[in-house]
């Protein structure tokens, strides 16, 4: 009896919050946004695979943030006495590499680099692609011609080869690797955004805002962008796995992160020499790349279902 009376305030609190979040009649802009977010969360929650992907990414972020607490060693801390220790040996959970550095700790700190690559690429390539694609699609005519031919030129090169060329020109290093990936990743987004814009620009709601005297810039950013957003987000999420792999590939080729940075691709590259006798040196960072890529793919697939504007009606 006492228990239930003690519990009741918190129960009503949470049900109040729920009612506030699910109301049909929001009373402010903020509440309208929150109800949208909440219904998005509800549909994410009802899709188990997407939820797994989402959790993997949350864990990645937590690991990156709390890296110093989770790591048992410093990422570059060497102990030549313990070099190439197998997984599970004393103090080396996932074993150690050729310099006796703890692989677990290096993977933990490496998550920061992976996260940085992901965030920087996600903040540049899709935004640039969206801008190019929507401007080309909305304006049409010669701007469309010029912008899309440039896009075609970029699309004509294999991504890794183009990235290699950029890195070779700019110099090896993680920053240049990210720049090179962004420069090669935007064209597909431009194409998607343009295709979406072509269908959107003839919609009545665009005619309506044109009739109120809005300029092209306002229409593109305020009215066309929100409609392109969902397909771009889905595409970015699905592409992220490829971007991590490209970054790892550049690292593997020695053109990305430089030693002793604990970048996962560079770690695999270093472990290649010992692959037959000391498999864990290359395999553990490989597993990390695999799990994070999988997480992005699962989330991307789920987001496609959740954000699909056609499915929203039902």
């Amino acid at each position, binding site marked *: 009896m006492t228990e239930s009376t003690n519990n009741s305030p918190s129960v009503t609190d949470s049900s109040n919050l729920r009612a506030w979040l699910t109301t*049909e*009649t*929001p*009373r*402010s*802009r903020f*509440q*309208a946004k929150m109800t*949208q977010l909440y219904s998005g969360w509800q549909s994410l929650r009802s899709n188990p695979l997407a939820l797994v992907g989402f959790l993997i990414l949350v864990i990645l972020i937590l690991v990156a943030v709390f890296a110093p607490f989770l790591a048992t060693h410093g990422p570059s801390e060497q102990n030549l006495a313990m070099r190439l220790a197998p997984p599970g040996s004393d103090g080396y959970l996932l074993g150690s590499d050729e310099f006796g550095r703890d692989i677990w700790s290096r993977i933990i700190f490496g998550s920061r680099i992976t996260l940085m690559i992901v965030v920087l690429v996600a903040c540049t390539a899709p935004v640039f692609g969206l801008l190019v694609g929507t401007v080309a699609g909305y304006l049409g005519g010669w701007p469309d011609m010029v912008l899309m031919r440039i896009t075609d030129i970029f699309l004509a090169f294999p991504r890794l080869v183009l990235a290699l060329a950029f890195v070779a020109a700019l110099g090896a290093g993680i920053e240049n690797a990210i720049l090179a990936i962004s420069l090669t990743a935007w064209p597909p987004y431009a194409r998607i955004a343009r295709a979406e814009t072509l269908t959107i620009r003839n*919609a*009545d*709601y665009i*005619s*309506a*805002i*044109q*009739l*109120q*005297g*809005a300029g092209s810039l*306002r229409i593109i950013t*305020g*009215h066309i962008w*929100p*409609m392109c957003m969902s397909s771009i987000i889905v595409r970015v999420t699905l592409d992220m796995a490829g971007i991590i792999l490209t970054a790892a590939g550049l690292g593997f080729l020695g053109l990305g992160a430089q030693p002793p940075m604990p970048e996962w691709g560079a770690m695999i590259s270093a472990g290649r020499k010992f692959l037959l006798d000391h498999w864990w040196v290359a395999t553990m960072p490989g597993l990390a790349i695999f799990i994070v890529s999988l997480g992005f793919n699962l989330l991307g697939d789920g987001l496609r279902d959740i954000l699909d*504007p056609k499915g*929203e*009606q039902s």
Partner: protein
Amino acid sequence: MHSSEVAQQLKADATLEISNLDVFFGQGMERLQAVKDVSFSVAKGGSFGLVGESGSGKSTVLRTISGLVGDWKGTININGKSMDYRRDRAFYKTIQMVFQDPYASLHPRHTIDRTLSEPLILHGVGDRDDRVDQALLDVGLGTAFRFRYPHQLSGGQRQRVAIARALMLEPEIMLLDEPTSALDVSVQAEILNLLADLRQNKNLTYLLVTHNLAVVAHMCEDIAVMNRGEIVEVMSVETMRKAEPQHPYTRELLLASEGYVPE
């Protein structure tokens, strides 16, 4: 009576005057003439109906007046001012449009609040909160709808929002493009009543495009019948009620609106 004579008669106090309008689509060899030599005028405070079937060019006339279609010849006079291809800011405060499909004319990711505030922001009108609330009350929705998204609204409610949006800049002329053809009969009645009330309260001038003769007879005083891009007949609603239209096409339309005619 020839359409240009009617136009002459009404010229004196015309708010909206169209003469010899030709509209084209496409380019080069593919260039098609969608509207041929269309002339009519609408008096201030009047309600003019443009009737025709799909493909008759009636909606194209409306979109040309609103500046959404670029390739045209002829004269479009609004309040005595001849329109150019580019429209100035004052134009958008004079004339507004309500579209046919309320499911396609509201931005799916904008709240009603944003949809209604945007014209005010664009034209630097102050007092936005009060104006949005008032507009919602004017179209019979109430302020509880303000922060909802279009997908939370029924078709009729959406069309009310679209009407409210068109009224935000307090225009004198409203272009109505089949405003009820996507709605159920009972909702159509509500929207037509609302449009009639608004016209009276705000002294609006209507140009209504529809394929439904009963709707045009209810809403308008004068009617132009369009077929294949041309106006075949301009008449008053009384003429139509007395079933005295001249042109065979008009008579055919009128007969069909009564229901099925066996062979």
